[in-house]
């Protein structure tokens, strides 16, 4: 599962001032291992400043084209790995990589007839680009309606590639770009306002306008959202306001205040769990959630979606601290009271005691 592979860097491409995309050469014998679904990520491992660091970066390449695996990496302020990649990585370097993974992906099939709404902000474009390309190329009957928000013209990643897709698939692909702080020049005074960009953030008003302006044609509709935490919250709220069923919304939090998968678990923490009157004491092996640790021990904790949505796996933490990778079910108050979704919880302290009530 967490086996490391050595991949050679094929290309390092500056996408914007603060972002780079990195392509890897996957040797033939690893083709199967590195098969991925559009939306998934790669986890890279480096030794930086004397410590082992792992970070996950979404793949922006499409698995259905003959193209190398490519990730998009945007600088995070003070970020150990993102800055290392942007500053130092070069063609020919060997990088330690885990096989692709992730629950945020589109199940693309040739025969599908769907309308995809894609909402991306900033570097959140990375997995969205992969989904976009894969859908357009594979599903000849499906439609894609996409909003892409950025700060200004200069921070737009994959701008050229998006333009090309827009040109090539204009019958089935609508792209609206919005800028929160568009750069303007003095010379703009003599020009008519550009139609290329809308002004503002990806927020409730923007989303409602967009869906009314571009209603779905195929009626099997899915909504994919990727961006910083606030953008996700706003988008999901806007979608819920107009009664979009929750099971049609897929989200990946990204590139913002809460960077995903950057919280490291405490290695081999000791878990004490009270389940159905039984007291279970086991270690939590690195990479496992509390729920998985119990299941792998042959226990039967309650759970269902394993995606942080349904709250079937709810438990109360009586001792220690945990981190939820994803929480779409519990309110802040419940978390404060010590409740946690065990399917999403990794230990932050050496001793963890929980109870399934």
């Amino acid at each position: 599962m967490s086996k490391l592979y050595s991949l050679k860097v094929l290309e390092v491409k500056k996408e914007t001032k603060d972002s780079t995309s990195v392509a890897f050469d996957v040797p033939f014998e690893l083709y199967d291992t590195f098969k991925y679904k559009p939306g998934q990520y790669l986890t890279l491992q480096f030794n930086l400043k004397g410590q082992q660091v792992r970070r996950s970066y979404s793949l922006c390449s499409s698995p259905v084209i003959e193209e190398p695996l490519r990730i998009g990496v945007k600088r995070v302020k003070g970020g150990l790995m993102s800055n290392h990649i942007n500053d130092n990585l070069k063609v020919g370097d060997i990088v330690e990589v885990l096989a692709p993974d992730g629950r945020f992906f589109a199940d693309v099939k040739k025969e599908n007839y769907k309308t995809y709404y894609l909402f991306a902000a900033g570097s959140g474009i990375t997995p969205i680009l992969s989904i976009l390309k894969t859908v357009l190329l594979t599903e000849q009957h499906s439609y894609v309606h996409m909003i892409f928000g950025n700060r200004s013209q200069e921070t737009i990643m994959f701008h050229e590639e998006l333009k090309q897709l827009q040109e090539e698939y204009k019958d089935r692909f609508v792209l609206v770009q919005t800028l929160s702080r568009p750069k303007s020049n003095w010379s703009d005074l003599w020009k008519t306002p550009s139609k290329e960009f809308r002004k503002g953030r990806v927020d409730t008003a923007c989303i409602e306008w967009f869906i009314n302006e571009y209603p779905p044609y195929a009626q099997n509709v899915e909504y994919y959202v990727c961006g910083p935490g606030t953008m996700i919250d706003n988008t999901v709220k806007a979608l819920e306001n107009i009664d979009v069923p929750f099971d049609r919304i897929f989200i990946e939090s990204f590139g913002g205040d809460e960077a995903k998968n950057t919280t490291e678990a405490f290695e081999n923490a000791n878990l004490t769990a009270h389940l159905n009157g039984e007291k279970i004491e086991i270690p939590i092996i690195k990479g496992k959630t509390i729920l998985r640790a119990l299941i792998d021990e042959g226990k039967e904790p309650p759970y269902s979606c394993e995606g942080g949505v349904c709250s079937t796996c709810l438990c109360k933490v009586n001792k220690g601290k945990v981190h939820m990778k994803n929480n779409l079910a519990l309110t802040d108050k419940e978390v404060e009271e010590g409740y946690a979704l065990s399917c999403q919880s990794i230990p932050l302290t050496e001793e963890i005691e929980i109870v399934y009530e």
Partner: protein
Amino acid sequence: MNTKRMMHALPVEAYTSQEWFDLEMKTIFSTTWQFAGLVEDVANAGDYISVQAGLNNIFIVKGRDNRLRAFHNMCRHRGTQLLRAVGKNQKAITCPYHDWTYNLEGKLISVPKKEEEFPNLCNKELHDCGLNLHEASVDIFKGMLFVHPDKDAPNIMEFFGDVEPCLGPHIVEELVEYQEKEGEPFYTKEIKANWKIIVENYIDHYHLAHLHEGTLNMYDHAKAEFGWAGQHYWFNEPLVPEYMADVENASPQPLIKANKSEDMRVYVPWLFPNIGITEGESAWNTFHAIPLAPDRTLVVIRSKMENASEWEFTKQYTKSSMSKVWQHYGNKGKYEGDASDSMASGDFMEEDVYACEQQQKSLSSPMFSVGARAQRGEYAVMRFQEEVKKWMEKHGAFDKK
């Protein structure tokens, strides 16, 4: 099954018996994507329509997210039909009988006197009581709405995808409906014939130059191309050269821009099981054959035309009536006589209705049999019957009980 007397692939009783008709209702019209209207029928959030699709009555409602939902139009309490024909701006759906109420997701949200009368529903949320509306499927194909009674229906493109490239270049969403009386379809008629007789007439190339020798002769039947894409029939043919040469003037309505070209053709496909489209030079029509009884079928035609001003329609009409083309084409009845006689009316629909009803009449004669079949021009008639039989077989119509 009476195997002695056959139409082609189907026995004669398939066109006359109530038992067979009931089987078709169950195994064809309740297992296929059924035509439900045009996309603009459910234009805004809250709009709904209800349609009968085989044995099921299904309503389509548009949510605030602009997505359509379909449900079986039946209260989960005692089965009362919830919604009538068409309506607007529903926030919730309330059954008229006991005021049980559902939201637009089909979830049960209110039961009057719940505590006193239904204590067993009180320990759960209402929407978890297994009494939500039964979901159905709805989707859009070429500007038309279709419903399927199964909520996990195979997607509509798996059903229609193969025939799509054989349809006309018309962009249906950009056309506007033509109604002589507001809110009514262009043409509605109950025809005294089995629905399959009507389909077979629609897809019969052989009859075009004969039954319609004076009414559809502005199209060049000798140059027609036709065939099958799975269970669907496709057909197209050019205009005759004289009409084509003057079509800008002679066309009765403004030409449909998306279909304009130097080798303009008209497209007349039949989509399985019971919806035809006629995609012409100046009109785009749906031809919906709704079975009512073994010997009765309701035909509803809705017509769309280029989105042009009234003035342009009037201008075109004037130009068309002056065109010499119509001195030779398109309006001469097969027989001489009074216009009240279908066969002298000069109207191809009346000719078709006449032929279908006359054929149906003979089916009950002990002397009836099909004498021969034109190998090219009537191949479609046999193929259609095979498709019907295949579909019924696949859905258990002939399984031993």
